[in-house]
């Protein structure tokens, strides 16, 4: 190894490595053997888990941390989503956490010294019915009261922002207008996982891949003491479960039942083409969302399958339905070939809002329930969850999202903002 893994990216580093044929770039993070015990063990090496570890180390000085990932980093929902970032949620509690995340996105590449390719190209949500118009306008007003940008566009305005859009009125559900959040956009999903992993590792966090948690040990007082894994038992004073679709499975190991159901959510990409699509367009009503990656592929989000599943795949009729909608909205894509489709397992809560915070088990914390829209929240979720784990009390943004809300009835109903048809 010629350089330490924490070497910074810079123009000088790029030039130096170019001269040596790019053969001397170091590994971006270590692959250590697990230690006997850690102060904090994070279960789940996706974006949210890695961000949590990064902020634990960088903001709270807790560096004796391990991130356990059963497969490879970012191979679950972090690598399977459609990378859409926005913060136009209805309720104050949601607006606070999602806007916190959006503000962190804006400075994330600099913070991590790693290009996450955040691209605020605008997210436009289409209205197709009178009800859509009323709901979106309500969202726009609520957002603006919370200081979040969101504006109403006429059909002509929508087409001006996204020229491929069909507003002709010959559709089954014609476009009647749109809500546009200009600061919304996309980021490179892998880079988010890798950037946080590199940053956490540089602070001393151990990132342990191919390490599946198989049990949670508790002491006589009920507090957690260790996790059992496929690579041996690892002691833990605190455990943060950030396992997305598999949260119910992990929490059951500690005897905690969760108000979650896991569904396959599908996405697909087309063959790559030249830049033709300038923004992100979403349609809740006829159910499609689409953007174009920097590589040129159309990235298309489909819906969830109807049933609980961990199969990471879904029925073709779900993807077909979305392609029907895309073809009607953007007739120029009708003859595009789709290259791949896949599913990710999303953990959906009854009110479509996440669950973050403490649990009935001492030392056990959970960050889950992001459902069909967790990617956008990655930096904010990790930031406030790290504070919650470090201080053993909910961060102010976390407090409304505790597991307790299902007992008290203080649900945060974001079914309309969640966009994916459930």
């Amino acid at each position, binding site marked *: 190894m010629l350089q330490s893994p924490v070497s910074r990216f810079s123009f000088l580093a790029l030039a130096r490595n170019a001269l040596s044929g790019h053969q001397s770039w170091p590994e971006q993070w270590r692959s250590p053997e697990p230690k006997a015990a850690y102060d904090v063990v994070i279960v789940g090496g996706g974006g949210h888990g890695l961000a949590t570890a990064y902020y634990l180390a960088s903001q709270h000085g807790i560096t004796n941390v391990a991130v356990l990932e059963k497969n490879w980093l970012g191979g679950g929902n972090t690598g399977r989503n459609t990378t859409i970032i926005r913060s136009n949620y209805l309720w104050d509690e949601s607006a606070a956490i999602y806007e916190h995340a959006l503000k962190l996105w804006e400075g994330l590449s600099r913070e991590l010294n790693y290009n996450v390719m955040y691209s605020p190209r605008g997210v436009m949500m289409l209205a197709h019915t009178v009800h859509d118009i009323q709901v979106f306008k309500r969202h726009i007003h609520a957002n603006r009261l919370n200081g979040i940008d969101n504006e109403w566009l006429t059909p002509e305005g929508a087409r001006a922002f996204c020229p491929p859009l069909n507003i002709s009125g010959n559709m089954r559900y014609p476009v009647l207008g749109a809500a546009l959040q200009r600061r919304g956009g996309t980021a490179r999903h892998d880079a988010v996982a890798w950037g946080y992993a590199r940053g956490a590792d540089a602070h001393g966090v151990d990132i342990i891949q191919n390490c599946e948690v198989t049990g949670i040990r508790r002491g006589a007082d009920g507090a957690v003491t260790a996790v059992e894994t496929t690579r041996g038992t690892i002691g833990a004073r605190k455990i943060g479960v950030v396992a997305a679709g598999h949260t119910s499975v992990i929490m059951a190991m500690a005897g905690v039942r969760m*108000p979650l159901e896991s569904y396959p959510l599908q996405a697909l990409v087309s063959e790559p083409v030249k830049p033709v699509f300038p923004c992100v367009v979403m349609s809740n009503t006829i159910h499609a969302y689409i953007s174009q990656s920097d590589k040129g592929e159309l990235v298309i989000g489909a819906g969830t399958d109807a049933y609980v599943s961990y199969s990471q795949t879904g*029925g073709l*009729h779900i993807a077909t339905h979305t392609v029907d909608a895309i073809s009607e909205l953007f007739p120029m894509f009708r003859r595009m070939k789709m290259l791949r489709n896949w599913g990710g397992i999303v953990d959906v809560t009854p009110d479509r809002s996440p669950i973050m915070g403490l649990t009935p088990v001492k030392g056990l914390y959970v960050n889950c329930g992001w459902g069909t829209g967790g990617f956008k929240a990655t930096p904010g979720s990790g930031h406030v969850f790290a504070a919650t784990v470090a201080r053993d009390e909910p961060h102010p943004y976390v407090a409304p999202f505790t597991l307790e809300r299902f*007992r*008290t009835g203080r649900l945060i109903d974001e079914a309309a903002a969640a966009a994916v048809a459930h």
Partner: protein
Amino acid sequence: MLLIPCPHCGIRPEIEFRYAGEAHVARPAEPAALNDRDWAEYLYMRSNPRGLHYERWRHVHGCARYFNAVRHTLSDRIVATYKAGDPRPHGDALLAALNPVDVRR
């Protein structure tokens, strides 16, 4: 797309059916006696297993009747269906009948 054996009509494609959530979640016999925690348990908590899942389906574009199914959530293979009100079949026997490929990992 799943092929679902309706206990009344036989095997039909999934699009004829509507999924109706976890089965055997019984409404409390005495709702007035429940505290908030028990209500939350009944309304919101779900087993969400990685393995055999007992679930309700409704053959909405067929006989329109509700029935129960047992499906393995890793392979999505339906191992049994039975009429609403019938006792739930025992999981171990159903697991033994599954192809090992369906339950790996």
